[in-house]
């Protein structure tokens, strides 16, 4: 069996006096979209930030592409090929849309074909190309955050609640964009509260509660098992449609 692209083993994270992650274990296979689900405060964002090195794991191991990145710095983790879209999107509002994307392409000018592909995924960004990103709506900022994360090819994308607070029409276009990213072979770990969106996209699912992994497996199994949905998430897919 091939080694997963990302592997977390017994990861604990403390933030000040608070013990947030309690021995998190899961794996992200290459070329697939894995959903990370759980209620508010379950530890999903902490998990992503710990992978990115923004909060250091206090124990355990994080391996990416066979290398231990547990103690690596955030820039080194990003340079290893992990793109990150935080929950707050992290858009540079004083910079234009173009400048946000230019900055994300560390190795030089953005490849023209890749830029065309990105703007094809998020056509709204074209209209605001030379305007400050602060002028964008919430959904457009989310599009820019994802466009920025894929400005260069990445090995893995970590995306935190991209549909949060978006209008249904915007959620649908976001789902279409993720489907296109999946089709392009991107490996994605997506934190999501919207189970409808999660079930439409995920190949695999990891469910967290109280800083621990309480379930992991194929998304199709969770979608088919309403009792499991109720037990893990306290809701069923029907409620989100």
């Amino acid at each position, binding site marked *: 069996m091939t080694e997963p692209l990302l592997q977390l083993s017994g990861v604990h994270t403390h933030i000040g006096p608070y013990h947030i992650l309690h021995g998190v274990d899961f794996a992200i296979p290459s070329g697939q979209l894995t959903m990370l689900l759980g209620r508010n405060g379950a530890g999903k964002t902490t998990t992503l930030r710990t992978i990115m090195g923004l909060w250091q794991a206090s124990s355990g191991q994080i391996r990416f592409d066979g290398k231990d990145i547990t103690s690596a710095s955030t820039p080194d983790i990003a340079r290893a090929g992990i793109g990150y879209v935080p929950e707050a999107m992290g858009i540079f509002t004083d910079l234009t849309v173009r400048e946000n994307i230019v900055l994300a392409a560390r190795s030089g000018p953005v490849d023209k074909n890749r830029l065309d592909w990105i703007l094809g995924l998020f056509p709204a960004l074209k209209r605001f190309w030379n305007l*400050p990103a602060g002028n964008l709506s919430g959904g457009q900022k989310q599009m820019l955050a994802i466009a920025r994360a894929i400005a260069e090819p990445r090995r893995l994308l970590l995306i935190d609640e991209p549909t949060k607070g978006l209008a249904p029409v915007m959620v649908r276009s976001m789902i279409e964009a993720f489907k296109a990213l999946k089709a392009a072979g991107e490996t994605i770990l997506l934190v999501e509260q919207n189970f409808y969106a999660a079930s439409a996209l995920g190949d695999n699912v990891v469910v967290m509660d109280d800083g621990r992994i309480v379930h992991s497996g194929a998304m199709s199994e969770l979608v088919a098992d309403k009792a499991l949905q109720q037990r893990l998430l306290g809701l069923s897919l029907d409620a989100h449609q």
Partner: protein
Amino acid sequence: MSDMAAESNTPAELPRAKTDWLPLVLIPALALLALPFVGSPSTWVTLTVAGLAMGMMIFLMASGLTLVFGLMDIINFGHGVFISLGAYATLLVLGPLAGWAQADSLGLNLALLLLCILAAMLVTGLVGAVFERVIVRPVYGSHLKQILVTMGGLIVTEQLIHAIWGASPIPIPLPQSLRGAFVFGDIVMERYRVVAVVIGIAVFLGMELLLNRTRIGLLIRAGVENPEMVEALGYRIRRLFVSVFIAGSALAGLGGVMWAFYRQTLTAGMGMEVMVLVFIVIIIGGLGSITGCFVGSLLVALVANYVGFIEPKLALISNILVMALVLIWRPQGLFPVARR
């Protein structure tokens, strides 16, 4: 610039960003408003040029601090000592090249000024690197500690200046060609002030180009707003912090040279004396904004000059009054920079 190649990949008819012209209009509006109160047009031109020159010197001294404050969130009360140190560094050049200052040659005189600036920027840049490593780095994230520690650093460095160059004020001569004034009818413009205006504009344009047309400039602007995200994109923000601190110290050194030749006297406390003005300017401009710092400097200096002429008793409070009015109008400063 090659990094901006992405621009050429999109249609030309896309909308451009709107420029916030309103604060920029303040300067000519203020000048025109002062004209009837000053009365004599020739006096008005003299006051305006003198105010612009003073504003440029304040800008040179303040621009480094606004970048350091904006990007690193560091309250560096020790900034003033880099101004003093830059001023004293002129002695390193004026000592061996005293003859150049006396020569009746504009070329030699300007070359001397340039060498003084280079020496000052080198010295203050190097001391800035040490200051950041030893004094500032241990107190990242704690404003109270920063104020205390950088004040301590200022006092220690001022005492070092006393130990090296002595405690007495040291007179320094203006290079021969920069003395005196250009006289056009009733209008008098001191030559050195014209040079200060030219250098101030050149530095401002250089910084604007750097910040808006280069990748390092983009990184600085992005880092001012969200340093964590800059790291998550793969850039080492710490190196950027150190570079900006060194650049900020070197700019203070440059300002110190210009300020020293303007005063024609060196004292260890000369940097600290202008720090209140420097803080007013960076607050008025918007913390982290170079354009704001530039406009704020000109505004403060012009108001001080006009008020000092029209109603001298109000001159002392004019700067505070300007700051209060600007902050009532725009609480985040003239050109607010988005904050993390």
